[in-house]
């Protein structure tokens, strides 16, 4: 059988379906014309390459000749990679939530040749099962409706389109006050799992922006419990099977409340947002464990997820050799075979059992397989084994390396090696911040290489950003997330390297973002540019799901760029955004924790710090280091290098020209909440002006090698 049209695509997910008997089309005019010409509805299937149930539906139905025949007869079939086309995914996911009350992937939409939906579902089995109608039953029914009851169907279409348009016009202007932070904290507190950390019931997602919010809440109100919630979650997520103890990095989510049995895919954005959470927790507590965990995740990214020319890959699949998690699981015998007499160390530390240490989700039985996890303190294990902690760590580390080498020989899960601007932006931000706090040059190098890659390979000739790169082709107009996350990365990189070009680029891209995405009438940023593809509506999103929303990050960027360059226009826009999204946020604040992180910044106190000094001199470095050692989230930092006569930064800020050092020593100019203090050369005085208290030491719990 000849491959279908998806064989011409770049997306690994689309390529996976190129040999299906279903006559798939990529999203595009060819498919819509065919649907019009043949008067057939469109069967739109949206998923992504590391999605477990997408694979299940493919194996069961899209590779099945009977189903394929039905689909090909009744519909024109389109496959979309949600990571390539988040605009399409967002829109039809909204439709699915509206029509069915829930959503998820694979997403299945049936719609008119004009792209107007009338049926929505997620995973659909082949035959009727789990109380769901199967495709075999469903397809002929829909075909019949389309043929015999078109008028009724079109009424549904009209209603859905109207509701969609109404939702997108949601512009109740209200205001948000500091009290919303407390409400959010209380809701998170109520949902907090006191036993295992994290929020809500299973499945449990890491939701790192909840943790970042709580750290700010702790900082603002000295609310000890907020920090305790974060620490408990961070420690348990790492101790559990959610963390890959052999090769590092976090899996996507846990199927149980204990963080034990994960879905094994690894997403770039989770690695980025989680390392930010561990990095900030380290900044506050100085607990070395968090530093080690952040280092491990970064080392995984640099080892396995970085393209030779600098971009970061998107994800790794859960399945290998057709089994979920096979790559990551171990039998006791295997461990004994690889490690010999050292096996007992791993068996004890990671709770390995002969018959397996977990029950499979589908079959509810043990199968001799083990997920590595920790459930007691390292010093206790060392004690049980009768060795010192130091000895324990060094042996554990050697054993881990042996297991890693052994595992490398296994068939690896599929890697989705497309490079996405939005997710790269998050990783750039994480690496830049991580390197600033941990002082690690190789993290800066990696962030800079990714920035260079995007700026040289992922832009149109007119400078507009693109969304996706793979197989030497950059394509798809950038969306709000691409701009917002990448600008965030650039700002973090400026505050780490003080290379003015990053700030300049951030400002240039922010200008593009405003001109192509800002809604002049009702404020806020649309997800798609004003010259992008025409879908039913242009959506404006602010929900912080697995990934923070573009509007939340763009809001934070506006405030930071506004303060860095003393540009009140940006701050006005920020204030308008708060008003626009206020009513949604009041309804369910915990769904907007990244947005509320930006609000926390706006409420302040906020600080603008200009350090003037010789950028190579020890005293300047010390002053900058002092700033990174403390958790002061709501500040911007500028370096004005004294050794250059008229440094480029003066052109961008417009206010640093007269900032000179006192007696040629590194000098800090601190402004707080719209007023400024006399400059100082004394680091402690600078910190006092920034209102920094003492750091807290946290208890070492699980312990990390």
């Amino acid at each position, binding site marked *: 059988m000849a491959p279908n049209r998806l064989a011409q695509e770049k997306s690994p997910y689309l390529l996976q379906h190129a040999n299906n008997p279903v006559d798939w089309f990529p999203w595009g005019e060819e498919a819509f014309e065919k649907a019009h010409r043949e008067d057939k509805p469109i069967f739109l299937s949206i998923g992504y390459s590391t999605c477990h149930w997408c694979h299940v539906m493919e194996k069961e139905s899209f590779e099945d000749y009977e189903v394929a025949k039905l689909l090909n007869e009744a519909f024109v079939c389109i496959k979309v990679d949600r990571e390539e086309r988040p605009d399409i995914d967002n829109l039809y996911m909204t439709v699915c939530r509206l029509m069915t009350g829930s959503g998820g992937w694979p997403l299945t939409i049936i719609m008119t040749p004009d792209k107007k939906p009338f049926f929505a579902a997620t995973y659909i089995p082949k035959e009727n099962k789990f109380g769901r109608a199967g495709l075999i039953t469903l397809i002929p029914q829909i075909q019949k409706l389309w043929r015999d009851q078109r008028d009724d169907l079109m009424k549904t279409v009209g209603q859905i389109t109207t509701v969609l348009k109404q939702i997108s016009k949601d512009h109740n202007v209200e205001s948000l006050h500091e009290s919303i932070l407390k409400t959010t904290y209380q809701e998170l507190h109520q949902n907090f799992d006191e036993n295992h950390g994290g929020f809500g019931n299973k499945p449990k997602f890491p939701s790192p922006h909840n943790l970042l919010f709580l750290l700010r809440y702790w900082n603002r109100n000295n609310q000890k419990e907020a920090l305790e919630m974060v620490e408990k979650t961070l420690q348990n997520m790492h101790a559990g099977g959610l963390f890959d103890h052999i090769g590092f990095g976090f899996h996507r989510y846990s199927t149980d409340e204990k963080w034990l049995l994960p879905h094994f895919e690894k997403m770039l954005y989770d690695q980025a947002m989680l390392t930010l959470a561990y990095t900030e927790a380290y900044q506050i507590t100085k607990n070395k464990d968090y530093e080690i965990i952040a280092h491990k995740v970064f080392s995984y990214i640099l080892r396995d997820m970085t393209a030779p020319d600098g971009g970061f890959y998107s994800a790794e699949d859960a399945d290998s050799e057709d089994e979920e998690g096979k790559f990551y699981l171990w039998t006791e015998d295997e461990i004994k075979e690889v490690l010999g007499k050292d096996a007992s160390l791993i068996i004890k530390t990671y709770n390995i059992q002969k018959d397996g240490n977990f029950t499979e989700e589908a079959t509810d039985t043990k199968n001799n397989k083990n997920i590595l996890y920790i459930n007691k303190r390292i010093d206790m294990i060392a004690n049980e084994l009768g060795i010192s902690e130091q000895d324990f760590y060094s042996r554990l580390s050697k054993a881990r390396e042996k297991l890693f080498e052994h595992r490398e020989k296994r068939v690896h899960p599929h890697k989705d090696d497309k490079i996405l601007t939005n997710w790269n932006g998050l990783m750039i931000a994480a690496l830049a911040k991580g390197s600033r706090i941990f002082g690690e040059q190789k993290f800066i190098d990696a962030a800079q290489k990714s920035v260079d890659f995007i700026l040289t390979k992922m832009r149109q000739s007119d400078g507009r950003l693109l969304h996706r790169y793979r197989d030497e082709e950059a394509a798809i107009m950038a969306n709000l997330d691409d701009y917002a996350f990448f600008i965030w990365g650039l700002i973090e990189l400026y505050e780490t390297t003080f290379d003015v070009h990053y700030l300049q680029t951030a400002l240039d891209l922010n200008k593009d973002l405003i001109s192509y995405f800002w809604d002049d009438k009702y404020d806020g940023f649309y997800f798609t540019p004003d010259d992008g593809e025409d879908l039913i509506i242009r959506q404006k999103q602010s929900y912080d799901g697995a990934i923070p929303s573009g509007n939340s990050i763009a809001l934070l960027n506006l405030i930071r760029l506004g303060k860095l360059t*003393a540009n*009140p226009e940006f701050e006005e826009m920020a204030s308008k955004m708060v008003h626009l999204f206020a009513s949604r946020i009041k309804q369910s604040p915990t769904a907007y924790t990244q947005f509320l992180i930006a609000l926390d910044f706006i409420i302040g106190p906020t600080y*603008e710090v200009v350090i003037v000094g010789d950028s190579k001199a020890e005293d300047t470095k010390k002053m900058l280091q002092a700033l990174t050692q403390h958790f002061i989230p709501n500040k911007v930092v500028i370096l004005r290098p004294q050794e250059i006569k008229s440094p480029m930064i003066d052109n961008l800020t417009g*206010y*640093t020209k*007269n*900032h000179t050092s006192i007696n040629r020593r590194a000098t800090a*100019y601190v*402004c*707080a*909440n*719209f*007023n*400024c*203090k*006399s*400059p100082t050369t004394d680091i402690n005085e600078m910190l006092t002006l920034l209102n920094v208290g003492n750091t807290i030491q946290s208890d070492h719990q699980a312990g990390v090698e």
Partner: protein
Amino acid sequence: MDIKHIQGKNRGHIMIYALSTCVWCKKTKKLLNNLGVDYYYIDVDLLEKEEKENAKKEITRFNPSCSFPTTVINNEKCIVGYKETEIKEALK
């Protein structure tokens, strides 16, 4: 002491204690310029040592944290920082 005078509509005696380097001080001056009101200002950082100490003492009378800009109206009302609405309100 090097006190600068900007002429304009009389809305009482207005004195801004400022730093030449401070972005919020510049914005405050600019706001008053735009409002066209009569005011005085001192860039404290440009003063000689002794005068600087005297100026700081004066400021501390109104604003113990000695931050800039400190805007003093009729020797009694004091507005610390660039507070656009508050300043406009006070100068009505």
